[in-house]
């Protein structure tokens, strides 16, 4: 337990953990100190000077101050308010006065503080910086005339490792820009859009939200979870009239998981793309013919009901728990039918329910056989999570066949044969823990030193977490015998959830080439096999047309994850909710609805089409 420190704020006594930030601590007990440049979880910058507080006649900025005992803080008095008012007034004098048409109106911190401090209009001369620049990269619109030089975008970009933005120049020539004023595309920006999340004013925003015609308060917000990859980042969507306008990250400003990659943030346009499957289709004479649900369901039900044929149901893991339950009921009824996950799956979470892994508390992360990379869009949310944890003083051990982007940040990086390194690591760890006198040493002495250091860090840590792909799960279990937990990161985002509903895969590794012996394959979701599966009959149930879908015999249009309500269980075992933000296109149905319809059809009776809770038939 961290040591608690007593101090007084505005006359009331509080206890906070030692070393915490004064601004964050006050916020946690409901005392808001105005700030424009602070980012929770990051070191304070002290650029805006709005968070000045008085500590026994000494004026300090709350964002750069650590809690010490016997502080007597006053956060608000005449003098402080006058200082804040003049500062905000000065910022307003340098800011375009177009609140009326600005897209950020309602969500703008500058507007909020001007209102709180009672500033109707700036009392200083109207000025502007001499370098207006408006850039519309594919996704991000950067209007420099609104920038107040708070530096939040620079600091978040640095924290995430991309580092394309910086404040160049000094004095009045200061401006936030990329190296050599390159465009965002040239500068190496990955378009994650975190700068959009943190900008307090309208300087950096989505290119699609350039005009403010739909105001912030007219939009409906819905908290949901991204199912694009296993990182399962939390997001909140802003929609208007059933159409998504904007997506922001929602893990919480203080969380190390506050991130959304470009797919999650800007990818909602694909819900209306040309490749969307709009109606059930059956292949006749080599071309797809549109049909109605009745006919398509009849065909599918008939194919699945053949008792003699071997059936395989392949899921990409993007089903919600509710979809999985519905599928489970359908599958239990079918003869000669196996369920598998696309890609490799693992036996099951290795932790009992009471002891789920806690990523916030963990102080050591060991990744083996994984190469999370924002640049290559491979588990980007996970890579940023590790970077943020390291910034908050967690340690990283990397075991991989070659150098990865995170190797530079690791305290110990073991490259080479992954299983042998893992084996040596766990042997040495267990040897030290059990106190034996002999252990097999690694032939390479530098590796031996690295392993020794890694083991030492592991033993010193409080809550280590080991992240592995399914193939290394068994080997990794050897490391966590005494403490720590193994977390498996699979291709399938809701694998934990689907398995928890009772739907267990028949094989742990689905090999598409081996489907020659299956007569019917029913692929649910975006199953990532582009070659034609060797099967007699292929049913694809997905929202978009894929290479696999081109070769299908029946296409069933399903709703995408923005269009459903449901829950999933993420890779850390937490239950996450999905909320519908956009209405699905007319003939698309949720997965669970389709399974129900097929099951009904199979019973022979033609039931009236059931409406689910969203009122979608």
């Amino acid at each position, binding site marked *: 337990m961290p040591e608690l420190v007593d101090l007084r704020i505005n006359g009331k006594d509080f206890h906070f953990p030692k070393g915490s930030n004064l601004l964050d601590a006050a916020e946690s007990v409901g005392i808001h100190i105005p700030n*424009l440049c602070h980012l929770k979880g990051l070191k304070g910058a*002290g*650029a*805006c*000077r709005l968070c*000045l507080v008085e500590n026994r006649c000494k*004026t300090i900025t709350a964002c750069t101050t650590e809690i010490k005992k016997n502080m007597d803080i006053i956060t608000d008095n005449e*003098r402080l308010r*006058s*200082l804040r008012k*003049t*500062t905000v007034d*000065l*910022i307003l*004098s*340098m800011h375009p006065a177009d609140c009326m048409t600005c897209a950020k109106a309602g969500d703008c911190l500058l507007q909020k503080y001007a209102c709180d401090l009672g500033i109707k209009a700036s*009392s*200083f*001369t*109207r*000025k*502007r*910086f*001499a370098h207006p620049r408006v850039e519309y990269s594919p996704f991000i619109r950067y209007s420099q005339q609104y920038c*107040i*030089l*708070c*530096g939040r975008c620079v600091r978040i970009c640095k924290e995430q490792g991309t580092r394309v933005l910086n*404040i160049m*120049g*000094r*004095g*009045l*020539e*200061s401006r936030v820009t990329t190296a050599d004023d390159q465009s965002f595309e040239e500068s190496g920006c990955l378009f994650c859009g975190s700068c959009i999340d943190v900008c307090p004013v309208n300087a950096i925003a989505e290119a699609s939200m350039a005009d403010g015609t739909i105001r912030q308060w007219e939009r409906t917000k819905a908290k949901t979870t991204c199912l694009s990859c296993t990182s399962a980042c939390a997001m909140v969507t802003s929609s208007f009239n059933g159409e998504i306008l904007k997506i922001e990250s929602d893990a919480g400003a203080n969380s190390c998981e506050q991130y959304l990659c470009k797919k999650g943030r800007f990818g909602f346009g694909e819900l209306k793309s040309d490749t969307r499957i709009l109606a059930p289709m059956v292949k006749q004479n080599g071309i797809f013919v549109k049909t109605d649900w009745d006919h398509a369901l009849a065909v599918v039900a008939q194919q699945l009901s053949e008792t003699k044929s071997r059936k395989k149901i392949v899921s990409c893991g993007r089903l919600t728990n509710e979809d999985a339950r519905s599928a489970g009921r359908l599958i239990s009824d079918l003869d000669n039918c196996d369920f598998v996950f696309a890609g490799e799956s693992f036996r099951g979470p290795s932790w009992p329910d009471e002891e789920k892994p806690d990523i916030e508390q963990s102080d050591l992360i060991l990744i083996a056989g994984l190469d999370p990379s924002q640049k290559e869009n491979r588990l980007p949310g996970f890579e940023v999570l590790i970077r943020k944890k390291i910034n908050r003083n967690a340690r990283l051990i990397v075991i991989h066949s070659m150098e990865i982007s995170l190797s530079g940040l690791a305290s110990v990086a073991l490259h080479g044969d992954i299983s042998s390194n893992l084996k040596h690591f766990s042997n040495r760890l267990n040897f030290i823990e059990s106190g034996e006198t002999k252990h097999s040493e690694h032939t390479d002495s530098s590796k031996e030193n690295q392993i020794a250091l890694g083991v030492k860090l592991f033993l010193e840590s409080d809550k280590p977490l080991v992240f592995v792909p399914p193939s290394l799960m068994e080997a990794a279990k050897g490391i966590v015998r005494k403490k720590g937990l193994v977390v498996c990161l699979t291709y399938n985002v809701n694998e934990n959830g689907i398995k928890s509903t009772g739907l267990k895969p028949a094989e742990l590794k689905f090999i598409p080439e081996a489907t020659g012996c299956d007569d019917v394959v029913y692929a649910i979701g975006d199953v990532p096999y582009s070659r034609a599966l060797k099967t007699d009959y292929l049913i694809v149930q997905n929202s978009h047309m894929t290479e696999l879908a081109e070769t299908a015999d029946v296409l069933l249009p399903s709703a995408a994850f923005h269009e459903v309500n449901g829950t999933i269980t993420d890779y850390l075992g937490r239950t996450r909710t999905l909320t519908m933000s956009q209405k699905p296109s007319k003939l698309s149905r949720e997965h669970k609805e389709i399974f129900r319809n097929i099951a009904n059809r199979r019973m022979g009776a033609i039931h009236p089409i059931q409406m689910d809770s969203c009122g979608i038939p």
Partner: protein
Amino acid sequence: MTQTENSVILEGGWKKSQGYCVVRNTLNFVAEFLDSDMCGRCMPCTLGIYEMKIRLQNLTNRAGSCEDLDAIRKVAVTVRDSALCVKGKKAARNIIDSLERSISHYYEHIDGKCSFFKCSPLYIYKIVPDKCNACSECLLACEHNAVVGEKSSRFFIGSKAFEIISERCVRCGACLKVCPAGAILPSHAMMDNMFKKTDFTA
């Protein structure tokens, strides 16, 4: 001191103008701080000192008013109390000191008078008609065609005094230096059409 109309012409005005103008000094100090020393990383200092520069420019350009003084005072106090670093705080303290020590000079500038003859929009060069002997040295020295008059010739008795057109005069002081009779002196006369607009882009 002789007084003619609403202007005050000082005897030995040339020597008097060798002193420094407090307001101009403060303006130079602020302008130099903006151009070189300022880091621009904290908001009150960057924006505040720029605001002060504009206000001081107003004072030295005959566009000054009490509002400008109030703004300077308010901003300087804010920068002194809330700037990030000592540089900004010291700059603000210097300005506050200058305001306190020499507030009368600031008020003079608001009234349109610069006692030290340093703020060019606030004074003019005038040729004392009694002393002028129309030798035309000043006309030849002036590069801005601001002096008009007819040179005295040997054939005519008497001469008409030369005149300086204040709109064209930039107060470079060339005529002042070459006048053998010492007839050109700075004067506090107000010129209503000498208003200069401040460019507000940084």
